[in-house]
């Protein structure tokens, strides 16, 4: 029985309804018969440890792991994980397209079809006629097998994945500044930080358990300051001592101005700059400190404030708090910086602040990029499952790296193609152009999550294109476009490793059997390899077999986690690499003498940025540049997208939780009251938002948390898709699209 709230409050019948309703049992109850299996949350990149409660072969409960970094805490999505396992749209049987619909098929029929289509495309058009589009949600062993099969078996580097939409700019930022990917700090730094610079991140909603830890630090630390740089006043701003709101796309000017203040007020660390820092412009570290200071001269707080639409004194305050001597400063950021056509530069500018103040590699002083997916770091970035990468820091375009991998993978020299494959947007454009004939999409939903999505939805259904989707749910906005939909096992139904934001690797143990005929993606990939004649390359019987090979592939690299045997992963509550030997405690802070095993114990300084040939991190001269698309008379408002706490990614999982649907029913267009008055709309009114690429209708939420001239829509709604509107222009280095900023017009519908 369901009534609208209006009806409920209007009618006297509600009084009797109170007694008519039954009492619900405790769905999440666990008792003495519950078997608890160690795992990790399925959602964001925080990587919260938890136990899965199993009764009668079903997941009935979860409980946070008190011995993991999250100290037992889970956010509301994690708390409600059991509901996703038996969701009504779990995909249970292979499906093959027949006309405009699907027909149930056996695994053999479906896989035979996939095999024949991939073989045919490769024979007729060459290896680059096929591609794999993977996921930061796949297990490490799954991404590893896909990467190996496609790059070394099928001999195409067209292996990319949704981390390209998410973390590519953070990766390129770390690599360009320090020479190696991945953060050098850890979550424990939160407990030591005196100042938090949170920029382009709604941590409270996107990474709630880390936000909780920041809150705790603010409560217990001495005069802890939180600076939030965000155009919107999000829930993260509730703990901000300074919320510096600005015009979207102008934060490069703000961060350069902060650096200028640091120099002007003597807050830089001269010794650190002398010993550990180089300066560069473009792609060359060929500048001097003097050149950098000259470059910064143009970024007065007043000028930056004029560009950014903020107060100059707030920029000065932020810089002073960040730079105050003797206080630890920690920065955190995510898609607000990464999903930009200047995303890599924005990342560089955050690193600059740490490098000029020397606030890096010390407890509480670190630049920590927050990751959006549970295994984007461990599986895809570290595992090298992107089109330009090979496993564990190696590059496709590097002759030595390819030779190493050919030896490790026991394939003939010259097997690996020296030309990088296509990054995500280019991969889907190749599908659009007919150059890519077959695509395997695994554990992700590009039919909803790509920017300018209607363009690529057409590409997925192009005549002659053959698209395989392996998914735990059906229909999704991608599986509905597929030629074959394979039922994938979900989360607690399979075993493997996740690696989260802080280089922490954790084992997810299998708790229950897969629903229906579903199979783990690992098994699907191994089966595909056998059918394609690659069983020698992919001989694995279990994920543990693959993990043991991965340990060998990572050995001797800066990632070396040889100490993370399967047994140790089972016993532990997360291990941080580098961990080059069994018995090694793991590394909380990279590049730090006494902590990082790759910094010699007798190194004369406290840090060594060994990722770069000269051991120096680079302060980059990155000028302020506008976003790809700026507002004009025809498209006068800025459109941005992001997360809400109740949902995750494309909602395939969270929309299966009744409580989460109840708490946040649909994507709304959040508009400032001034804009609402100008447009003549009120909360609840339908508006159409139109960009140069597409349009979508949303109901309006008028709120002063928005910024004048800015409209925000959450990214999770599969019916009201914000990505019909977003921009598919990409950062020239990271190839990450600019989801965060485009120009739109908003009209009452």
């Amino acid at each position, binding site marked *: 029985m*369901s009534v609208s709230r209006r009806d409920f409050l209007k009618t006297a019948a509600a009084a009797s309804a109170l007694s008519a309703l039954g009492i619900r049992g405790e769905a999440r109850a666990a008792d003495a018969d519950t078997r608890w299996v160690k795992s990790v949350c399925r959602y964001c990149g925080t990587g919260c440890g938890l136990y899965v409660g199993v009764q009668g072969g079903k997941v009935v409960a979860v409980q946070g792991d008190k011995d993991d970094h999250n100290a037992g805490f889970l956010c509301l999505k994690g708390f409600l994980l059991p509901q996703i396992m038996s969701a009504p749209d779990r995909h249970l049987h292979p499906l093959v397209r027949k006309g405009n619909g699907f027909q149930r098929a056996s695994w053999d029929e479906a896989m035979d079809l996939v095999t024949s289509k991939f073989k045919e495309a490769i024979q007729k058009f060459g290896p680059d006629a096929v591609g794999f589009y993977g996921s930061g949600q796949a297990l490490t062993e799954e991404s590893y097998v896909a990467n190996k099969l496609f790059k070394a078996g099928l001999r195409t580097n067209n292996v990319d994945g949704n981390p390209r939409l998410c973390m590519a700019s953070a990766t390129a930022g770390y690599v360009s500044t320090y020479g190696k990917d991945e953060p050098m700090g850890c979550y424990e730094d939160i407990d030591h930080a005196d100042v938090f610079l949170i920029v382009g991140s709604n941590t409270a909603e996107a990474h709630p358990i880390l936000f909780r*830890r920041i809150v705790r630090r603010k409560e217990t630390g001495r005069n802890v300051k939180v600076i939030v740089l965000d155009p919107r006043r999000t829930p993260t701003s509730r*703990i901000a001592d300074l919320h510096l709101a600005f015009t979207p796309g102008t934060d490069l000017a703000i961060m350069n101005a902060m650096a200028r203040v640091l120099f002007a007020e003597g807050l830089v660390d001269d010794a650190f700059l002398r010993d550990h820092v180089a300066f560069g412009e473009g792609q060359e570290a060929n500048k001097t400190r003097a050149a950098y200071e000259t470059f910064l001269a143009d970024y007065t707080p007043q000028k930056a404030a004029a560009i950014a639409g903020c107060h100059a004194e707030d920029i000065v305050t932020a810089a002073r708090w960040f730079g105050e001597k003797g206080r630890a400063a920690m920065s955190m950021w995510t898609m607000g910086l990464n999903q930009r056509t200047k995303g890599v530069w924005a990342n560089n500018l955050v690193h600059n602040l740490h490098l000029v103040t020397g606030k890096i590699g010390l407890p509480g002083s670190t630049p920590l990029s927050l990751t959006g997916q549970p295994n984007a770091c461990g599986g895809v970035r570290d595992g090298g499952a992107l089109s330009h990468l090979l496993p564990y820091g190696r590059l496709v375009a590097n002759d030595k790296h390819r030779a190493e991998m050919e030896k490790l993978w026991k394939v003939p020299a010259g097997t690996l193609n020296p030309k990088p494959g296509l990054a995500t947007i280019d991969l889907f454009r190749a599908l659009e152009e007919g150059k890519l004939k077959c695509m395997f999409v695994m554990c992700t939903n590009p039919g909803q999550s790509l920017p300018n999505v209607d363009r690529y939805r057409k590409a997925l259904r192009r005549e002659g294109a053959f698209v395989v989707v392996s998914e735990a749910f059906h229909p999704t906005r991608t599986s509905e476009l597929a030629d074959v939909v394979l039922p994938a096992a979900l989360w607690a139904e399979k075993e493997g490793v996740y690696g989260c934001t802080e280089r922490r690797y954790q084992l997810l143990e299998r708790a229950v059997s897969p629903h229906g005929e579903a199979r783990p993606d690992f098994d699907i990939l191994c089966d595909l390899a056998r059918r394609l004649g690659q069983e020698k390359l992919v001989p694995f019987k279990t994920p543990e077999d693959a993990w043991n090979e991965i340990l060998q592939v990572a050995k001797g690299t800066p990632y070396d986690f040889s100490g993370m045997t399967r047994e140790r992963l089972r016993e532990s509550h997360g291990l941080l690499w580098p961990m080059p030997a069994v018995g090694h405690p793991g590394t909380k802070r990279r590049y730090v003498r006494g902590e990082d095993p790759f910094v010699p114990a007798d190194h004369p300084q406290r840090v060594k940025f060994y990722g770069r040939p000269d051991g120096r991190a680079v302060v980059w001269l990155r000028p302020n540049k506008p976003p790809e698309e700026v507002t004009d008379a025809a498209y006068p408002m800025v459109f941005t997208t992001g997360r809400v706490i109740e949902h995750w990614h494309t909602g395939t999982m969270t929309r299966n939780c009744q*409580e989460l649907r109840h708490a*946040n*029913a649909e994507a709304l267009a959040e508009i400032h009251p001034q804009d609402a008055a100008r447009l003549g709309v009120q909360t609840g009114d339908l508006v159409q938002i139109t960009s140069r690429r597409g349009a979508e209708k949303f109901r309006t939420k008028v709120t002063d948390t928005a910024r004048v001239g800015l409209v925000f829509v959450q990214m999770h709604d599969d019916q009201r898709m914000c990505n019909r509107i977003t921009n598919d222009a990409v950062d020239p280095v990271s190839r990450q699209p600019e989801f965060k900023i485009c120009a739109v017009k908003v009209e009452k519908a």
Partner: protein
Amino acid sequence: MRTRNAVLGVGTATLVVAVLWIGIVACAGPGSGRRTAAPAQHPEVDADLETCAACHAQATPEIVAQWSQGRHGLALVECVVCHGSTGADFRPRPESTGCRACHPREASSVTRGNTTKRCFECHTAHTLRAEGKASPHGAATGSRGQP
């Protein structure tokens, strides 16, 4: 459009009382000192665009304020986490087993024999503070490696 004001403005006096009663009981939690003879249920409501807290900010403002200013409010542990959704899924009195999902260490440290002591005997619902009381959690309180 079902704005909050419109919805709340049309209720009869009886129903407002009923809703307030529901809210108080729903939010009181076990051991809060406000006991009722039988657990109330929250009718299944099409919330439309509103959250539980948005409606209850009118219906039970004190409770929403306590939640909002408390740890759960700051951490966005929303009403649905402890109380479930409306209708048959509604839990007027959150069980301690629910607390255990996120607070396993604390829940494990307050046992009497084999029975988990109910969290809300000390932690006043919604504020969740346990002021002036000696902690029974001992060294178990807090977080691993965290203050």
